[in-house]
């Protein structure tokens, strides 16, 4: 799940640094399937989301280079992604009781293992009309 705040923050940072944004859709492959099995149904959502990000990034003047990565868990998919790609910073939305994201254990793992800057984003707490006015 992608929250608005994560996307906004990622675009803002990429724009400020003149960096290419690599949105990554991490998909969990069930154990009964091979890790390199095609994921048609998942890809429907993944491509729609990546297309949306592409549109927003284009409007913001940020270049994107998206990925879909498979793994046995979100952490495993992230691990595979970090191994395959070169990057300067990785931004992770953290999980809370009201939103999806990386579990504290996964965040701690990334802080420990990712070969680069790690930014942990607090998820969007929900609509707060007064603040946004």
């Amino acid at each position, binding site marked *: 799940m992608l929250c608005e705040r994560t996307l906004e923050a990622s675009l803002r940072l990429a724009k400020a640094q003149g960096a*290419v944004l690599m949105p990554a859709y991490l*998909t969990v492959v069930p154990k009964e399937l091979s890790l*390199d099995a*095609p*994921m*048609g149904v998942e*890809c*429907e959502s993944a*491509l729609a989301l*990546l*297309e949306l990000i*592409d*549109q927003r990034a*284009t*409007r913001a003047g940020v*270049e*994107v*280079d*998206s*990925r*879909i*990565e*498979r793994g046995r868990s979100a952490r495993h998919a992230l691990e595979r992604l970090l191994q*395959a*790609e*070169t990057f300067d910073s990785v931004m992770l939305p953290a999980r809370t009781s009201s939103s999806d994201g990386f579990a504290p254990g996964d965040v701690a793992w990334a802080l420990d293992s990712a070969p680069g800057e790690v930014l942990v984003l607090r998820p969007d707490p929900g609509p707060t009309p007064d603040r946004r006015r």
Partner: protein
Amino acid sequence: MLRSGRGRYKIFLGMAAGVGKTYRMLQEGQAERRAGREVVLAYLEPHGRAETEAQADGLERLARRTVEYRDTQLEEMDLPAIFRRAPELALIDELAHTNAPGVEHPKRYEDIEDVLEAGIDVYSTVNVQHLESLNDRVAELTGVRVRETFPDTVLAAADEVVLVDLTPEALIERLRAGKVYPAERVEVSLQNFFKVENLATLRELALRQVAEEVESKRIVKQEEPLGTRERVIEAAPQAVAEHVLALITPRPNSQRLVRRAWRSAQRLGADLDLLYVQSPGREPAGEEREQLGAMARLASVLGARLLIEEGDDVARTAAAVAADRGATYVLIGQPPQRRGFARLGESLPERLMRLLPGVDVRIVADRGQRQDRAASP
């Protein structure tokens, strides 16, 4: 008397019992008999259907033989009797049938192979769910696992496969009218296997199977030497199944093209190939290699195939691949603006359309350029 040369094999394929495969086989057998050929009905499974029995009238029938198995008398096709009679054409119902132990072969399609080898033509029948390669899929889709299967090679080796088609609604109508099973089995059948959704799925599988058979035979014929590759392109006939080919470059903006191509392929129920044409002898390096690696992973997760071909001429190489793969759609990114003398020649889309007559060529616009245009006064 046994004839020289292998007999011709014609299979009547249907989506389920009751579509009229046996009836159609008998009709064609009758037509052959009237045309003066020696036709015998070597094995018929009429399932008590009066219409089927009536259609068999006048055809010479071979008696079944009785096989004893575990104190039970089973009736089977009499293979030696076919050889003794040696007709020109044998009609043999239900090729996927499993024989009783003790006869020549475990499966009836193996009996048929012997008959064909003896130079006798064979007409036979089968339902699509008996195909070995579809067994798991049929079980998954309909919840019914078929025990009697036959190898796909049998269908592929047939000289002719005739699809006996009926809409699911029409078949259910026939079932309700008692034309498929006896009255006491109708309700149970309707609640289990004979549901519209099951039949629609099986019908689709049968239609696809026959289309793929035609396609594979078309491709085999195409592999015959035709001279230069250019002539192969010109000679390539239109494929029945849809097939999408997307021309990519190892750059991030190709991702949008791949997304568009995948969606098109999904809508068409088509296979998707991604093609990168690279200069001869130039190995990708650095960022280009990384991008190709990313594209290979994307192709894998999408179930698409990434093809990397060497060629000086992108249009000609792409056209050759499109023809080889039976592409019906070619998607390309927005070509870069041509400058100088290059503006006088044909563009990539124009060349592709000329080299691939009948193949749709679609250009996927570059989003960045659209933004620029929208922003300009």
